[in-house]
């Protein structure tokens, strides 16, 4: 094993050790909650990135997948007492089905037209949920939202009194999605996705089944996003259509991934954690100064990053990372982080 390899492993071990020991130092539930949300957003941004980042498709409607995952799981739990541990796979499967159904007609659309279609579908699904009180045997709750039945401390039903288990759960989910992203990016499908991201026609002319590649990647992305929705539901214990399916949810995933660096493995993670942390901090300090000031500042930060670092924050980190590994910026190992 060479020195570069050792340094890489060392870095991963240090980061994981810090992440695992955070609950030992941070004991206030509020702070744990904020950090958990950072991890959840990093997870959601990475899930969005699996398809949209790697294949360069701007989906502005990924909120429907968090919503479908969360609603299916919670409805199964509330009305049939099926544990969310099992229900989440039903939710994920429903999201995969939905993504495939949407994919067939929309994957023909390019660029802004695809983005517009996803906006329309996203809004449509939200309105549908808001206007559905019951669906067969299930209580959906319409615009009132859906309250998750409380069980007290019931690990078998994914409910904990303490915030700490949620933190570790979010961390585990983030690690899984990062490992999966890394695998996907280096797989044959990942190669196809980056080709069709650069030039869809050329990729098709060379014999890549563009639609299938998109459908499969979108299915992965929908599944992971749906699991994120389930986690959100169990953490907040209340589903509000606007919050789980609305444009805030959909757009936030895009902001975080793009600011961090979409189409890279670690970009959405960096973007999700830093940007969400910043947003919490400015909300804490500025929200009582003037109505909405924190959102204004948040928006400014997003605009500046996109203007001056369109490749994302990861591009800056990459330089330090390469220096740490002792390889030149344009060295052969250029793509090791991204």
């Amino acid at each position, binding site marked *: 094993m060479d020195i570069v390899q050792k340094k890489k492993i060392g870095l991963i071990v240090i980061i994981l050790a810090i992440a695992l020991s955070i609950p030992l130092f941070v004991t206030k539930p509020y702070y744990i909650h904020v950090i958990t949300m950072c991890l959840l957003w990093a997870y959601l941004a990475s899930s969005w990135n699996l398809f949209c980042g790697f294949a360069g498709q701007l989906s502005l409607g990924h909120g429907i997948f968090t919503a479908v995952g969360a609603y299916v799981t919670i409805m199964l739990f509330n009305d049939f007492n099926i544990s969310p541990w099992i229900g989440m796979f039903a939710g994920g499967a429903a999201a995969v089905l939905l993504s495939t159904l949407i994919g067939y007609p929309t994957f023909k659309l390019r660029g802004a037209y695809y983005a517009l279609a996803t906006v329309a579908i996203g809004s449509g699904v939200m309105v549908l949920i808001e206007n559905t009180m019951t669906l067969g045997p299930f209580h959906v709750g319409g615009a009132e939202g859906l309250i998750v039945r409380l069980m007290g401390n019931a690990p078998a039903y994914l409910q904990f009194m303490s915030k700490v288990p949620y933190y570790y759960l979010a961390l585990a989910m983030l690690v899984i999605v990062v490992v999966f992203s890394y695998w996907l990016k280096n797989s*044959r499908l990942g*190669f*196809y996705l*980056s*080709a069709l991201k*650069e*030039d869809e*026609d*050329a*990729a*098709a*002319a*060379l*014999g*890549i*089944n*563009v*639609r299938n590649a998109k459908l499969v990647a979108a299915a992965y992305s929908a599944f992971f996003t749906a699991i994120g929705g389930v986690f959100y539901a169990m953490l907040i214990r209340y589903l509000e259509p606007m919050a789980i399916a609305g444009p805030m949810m959909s757009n936030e995933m895009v902001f975080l991934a793009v600011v961090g660096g979409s189409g890279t493995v670690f970009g959405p993670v960096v973007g999700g954690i830093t940007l969400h942390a910043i947003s919490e901090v400015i909300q804490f300090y500025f929200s009582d100064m003037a109505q909405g000031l924190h959102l204004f500042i948040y928006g400014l930060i997003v605009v500046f990053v996109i203007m001056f670092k369109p490749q994302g924050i990861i591009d800056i980190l990459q330089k330090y990372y390469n220096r740490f590994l002792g390889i030149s910026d344009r060295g*052969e190992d250029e793509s090791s982080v991204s």
Partner: protein
Amino acid sequence: MNMKLLSIKNLNSGYGDVKIIKNLSLEVNKGEVVSIVGANGAGKTTLLKTISGLIPATSGEIWFEDQRIDNLPPHKITELGIIHVPEGRRVFPFFTVYENLLIGSTMPRAQKERKKNLEYVFNLLPRLAERKNQVGSTLSGGEQQMLAIGRALMGMPRILMLDEPSLGLSPLLVQTIFELISTIAKEGITVLLVEQNVRQALKLSDRAYVLENGSISLEGTAEEISNNPDVKKAYLGL
């Protein structure tokens, strides 16, 4: 002795309601170099896109040997060995030369022979071997065209369809590219060539079709076409 490889019968296609290709028929025999010449907007690119399945045919038939291909998706068509080098080269700008070549051989048939084909392409185009690890966007126009052709060769074409390979290249490089095409043809690969550079295209072709407003207005051997008074006047500037 003439084995039909590709035959098109009464083909119509276009974009939405706009009809570009109107009732077009043509044939390409095994081992031939066939040119399709014509002015801007005659439908040359549309024709190639229809053959490779990027645009659906509205009516008519396209046959490859004894298989009808006009309703197949593009990846099935390339799998048969019909490889399209699109207009404007369309090299993947952020892929290295090596990766660009790899992506040309994604179909199962070509994947097995990947190593051999890489060697073949690097032998044929040593310039690409020198620039193996450079990204596509840093190549010159001529090198990009070579890469686009090399990438197509990685897919083991039985018929290579080239769309305006001389587009935007200096006269010297145009010469190089046409020499490359004739080398490829000599190795037994059938070539369907679309060109605005009529003189050069006719020089290396066996037969040619003149395309006007989406239909064939003239066909014949390359010599017949280049001696045709109308063609001389309209395309060769004589």
